[in-house]
């Protein structure tokens, strides 16, 4: 049987704004239940929403990164439905005047590059969390900490033709949101959630039949997503062969994915579909997005990870793996490029940043944005190693110190006297050369003219470019003179 898979995605991304979407409560994952709440996000009588400007800026930024058009005027609407985790009985969302429309995201497929069209991107608030006790009491509790967290909902056209493409698309969204620093896109914590609409186009008797659309929810990892969609294809094929049901006679069904069984189960049939009774949110005026904001934000988008990755490979000769790591974060890629500037071996710098800087940040629990060491210091450290003053092993020590103290590598090298040659063999060589080249002074010393040793020491320092350890060199020199 000939068939085609058709998938469209609705992706929800939690924003990392400091405060919630419509109140000044802290916006952070977790916490003791119902401690990050206020009259507004608890939906108390009389409370009113106040729009978080940062949410609007983030939405515009995300929209521009996804090649969307930004609306000149956007508006919030109420989506009405009752559920215990939704304290107002409606969600503040956007309906017919979303902040962004008409974008696209390119993904890599087996057949090459493919553009997935994006219908719209809008802002809304997240709900709380219902917690159902499993102690047989039948009791449920609600935690409103998450309630009011700003979300972006990104809706694609049904342009994906395989579970793999759908996963690539969501990974692409994730990469961009993380790169822009507006979301951490953690699927397990739910800061990135994806619902996929999937059905099959079946070609039989020169006709195309469309199977009923399933909206698949509860896919908490990319693996789960792939498996859920694969399962749906199998299930829909079997259902088609058995019942020949088409979209025309049944419409859309909501199905939840169960990670343990690897199956999807019906959550809601079409008849139960809610009428959300959208209407403009009267508590908030329409929002004007100025050309200025769009232009400024556009400049902030800059080069996105996919393009950056390519450029790092071609311009710096990085391997794909290193290029991916560095290009995933704007701060990290900027850091790399600043360090690589004016230095001949970018591959070396890249590997230093990935292993040493990355390792340091990991151990210290810092982000690259919080890392205060100027990238030029890394460049300088590389140069010091290159000139043979210190070994790369010593360089790691220098780095550890400079990452913590912020001192320049030169200062550290000097302070720790890392540039002095203390190696006895090397110093003996200097002594031998100097004694050989200055027989008169050697003879003078042996005649009792002590000051000749000063002259010889000066020659040693000259020869070693000032790096010979004076004490050790002097001892060796005396030894050799006396033994001569």
């Amino acid at each position: 049987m000939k068939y085609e898979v058709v998938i469209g995605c609705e992706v929800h991304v939690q924003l990392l704004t400091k405060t919630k979407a419509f109140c000044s409560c802290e916006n952070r994952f977790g916490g003791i239940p119902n401690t990050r709440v206020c009259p507004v996000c608890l939906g108390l009588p009389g409370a009113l929403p106040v729009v978080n400007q940062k949410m609007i800026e983030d939405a515009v930024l995300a929209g521009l990164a996804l090649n969307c058009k930004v609306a000149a005027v956007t508006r919030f609407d109420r989506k009405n439905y009752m559920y215990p985790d939704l304290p107002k009985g409606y969600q503040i969302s956007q309906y017919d005047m979303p902040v962004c429309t008409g974008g696209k995201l390119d993904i890599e497929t087996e057949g090459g590059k493919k553009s997935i069209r994006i219908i719209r991107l809008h802002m809304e608030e997240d709900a709380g969390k219902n917690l159902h006790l499993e102690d047989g009491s039948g009791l449920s509790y609600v935690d409103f900490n998450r309630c009011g967290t700003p979300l972006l909902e990104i809706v694609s056209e049904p342009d994906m033709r395989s579970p793999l493409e759908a996963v690539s698309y969501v990974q692409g969204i994730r990469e961009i949101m993380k790169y822009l620093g507006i979301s951490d896109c953690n699927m397990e914590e739910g800061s990135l959630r994806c619902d996929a609409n999937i059905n099959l186009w079946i070609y039989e008797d020169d006709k195309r039949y469309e199977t009923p659309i399933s909206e698949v929810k509860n896919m908490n990892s990319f693996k789960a997503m792939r498996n859920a969609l694969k399962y749906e294809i199998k299930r829909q094929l079997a259902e088609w062969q058995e019942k020949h049901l088409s979209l025309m006679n049944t419409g859309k069904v909501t199905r939840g994915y169960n990670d343990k069984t690897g199956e999807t189960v019906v959550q809601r049939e079409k008849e139960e579909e809610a009428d959300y009774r959208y209407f403009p949110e009267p508590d908030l005026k329409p929002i004007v997005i100025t050309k200025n904001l769009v232009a400024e934000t556009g400049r902030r988008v800059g080069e996105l990870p996919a393009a950056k990755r390519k450029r790092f490979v071609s311009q710096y000769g990085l391997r794909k793996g290193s290029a991916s790591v560095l290009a995933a974060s704007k701060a990290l890629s900027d850091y790399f490029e600043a360090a690589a500037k004016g230095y001949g071996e970018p591959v070396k710098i890249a590997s230093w940043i990935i292993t040493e800087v990355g390792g340091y940040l990991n151990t210290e629990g810092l982000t690259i944005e919080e890392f205060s060491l100027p990238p030029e210091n890394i460049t300088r450290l590389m140069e010091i190693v290159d000139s043979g003053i210190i070994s790369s092993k010593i360089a790691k020590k220098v780095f550890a110190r400079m990452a913590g103290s912020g001192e320049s590598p030169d200062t550290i090298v000097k302070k720790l006297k890392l540039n002095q040659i203390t190696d006895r063999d090397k110093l003996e060589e200097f002594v031998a050369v100097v004694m050989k080249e200055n027989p008169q002074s050697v003879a003078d010393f042996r005649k009792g003219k002590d000051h000749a040793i000063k002259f010889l020491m000066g020659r040693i320092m000259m020869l070693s470019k000032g790096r010979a350890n004076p004490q050790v060199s002097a001892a060796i020199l005396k030894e050799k003179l006396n033994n001569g």
Partner: protein
Amino acid sequence: MDQIAGKSLTELKRLLDRGEVSALEIIKAFKEQYESDRKKPAPLNGYIEFFNDAEELAVKADEARKAGTSGILEGLPIAVKDNILISSRKATCGSAILQGFTSPYSSTVVERLMNEGIIPVGRTNMDEFAMGSTCEYSVYGPSKNPANREYVTGGSSGGSAAVVASGQAPCALGSETGGSVRLPASFCGTYGFKPTYGSLSRYGLVAFGSSMDQIGVISGDPDDIALVISVASGFDSNDLTSEDVDFSALFPLKRMRLKGKKIAIPEELSGEGIDKEVGIVLERFASWLRSEGACPETVSMPLLKTTVAMYYIIAPAEASSNLARYDGVRYGLRDITGNNLEDLYVRTRTEGFGDEVKRRIFLGNYVLSAGYYDAYYKKAMQVRYLLKKELNRVLKEYEYILSPTSPVPPFKLGTKIDNPLSMYLTDICTIFANLALLPAVSIPAGTTSKGLPVGMQLTGRMFDEKGILRAAKTWFLKESRGEV
């Protein structure tokens, strides 16, 4: 010393400032008035609760006055409608569904007044969730008209009008969505003022129809209204629909030279459908205006015939959404005798809401439903836009719009409670100001042959609170000197 109860806020302020009376004496006098009324065979039922600690607060206010740390309203009493939140006080909106709810925060208006030392003395009765025109739809039973206890007070702020008219408070806060301050003020023979939408913050006013809701003031003296507005108005960062207006110089009101002022009397609100006795008071008021040199003229504004229809689509639509939060999950009434979530919702809301509220929730959900939205809600909003344009056009040519506050004089308790449509029509003269966001004041302008109060209404340009209050003050001065 004259009797305290019955004096206006402004007079009491003068006495307090001069040290001729103490805050404690004032609060005691009003409390006594309230308590003596409660012992009567048919108490007015204006207060739901007179605060036990009001006298304690008065003692503190007297101390603050002595210490020289007093605010400009220090020790002055005000009654507050049961839908305007005061921190640590109950608030029920006249409903069973909010039984047991204590507000953890204060409305901005109350907070601003309290910051200047005002003492909220009690919560006043109201139609449930401010839905009603008689104050009969209250879980606490109807308030009664001080002019004749067999008559309704008008609503929904009936309790506020009753306590002011009977000398149980010098001044009261009410709220308006379609005339709920002006109508009871008119029926009880007091001044009732609705500011321009946005002049006062709605934060902490329990929402009914958010695009029209506004706190208003009831008093026997226009200067009291000016005093309260001057303190409470202006932008509030908790309410993005509030406006950055400056009414700080509103008090004390100067009288207005009405000479040459053009005043429009809408044909639609002055001829057919207006009670004969109300018409007589209107004529008398218009001739007073003429005697002051003003030029009242009849104008036709056909859209004024559509206001009730518009209002009873828009307000219920917003209400259906605003009241979704009363679900038994977090606060207020909670019926857990059922087996599941739906039972909790259905039982709590069935018990908790009265018939009128249910009627409007049904109506609101209906007009917002898929398939009906365009025909009702959207159309109503379009006509509302036209109405605003029309009124603003008329108000360019004319200074004010004059009409009766109510087409009918006060009627007996129980006569309209079972006839919603005839009840809704009581609002025909007031609603347009709410739909068009305009400021309006009801002026006690006369009585019927039975001695029942009749109010006349002046509506002004956007944010011209000063103009209509000064006009009201001019009437007040002439009327109190018996010059009209």
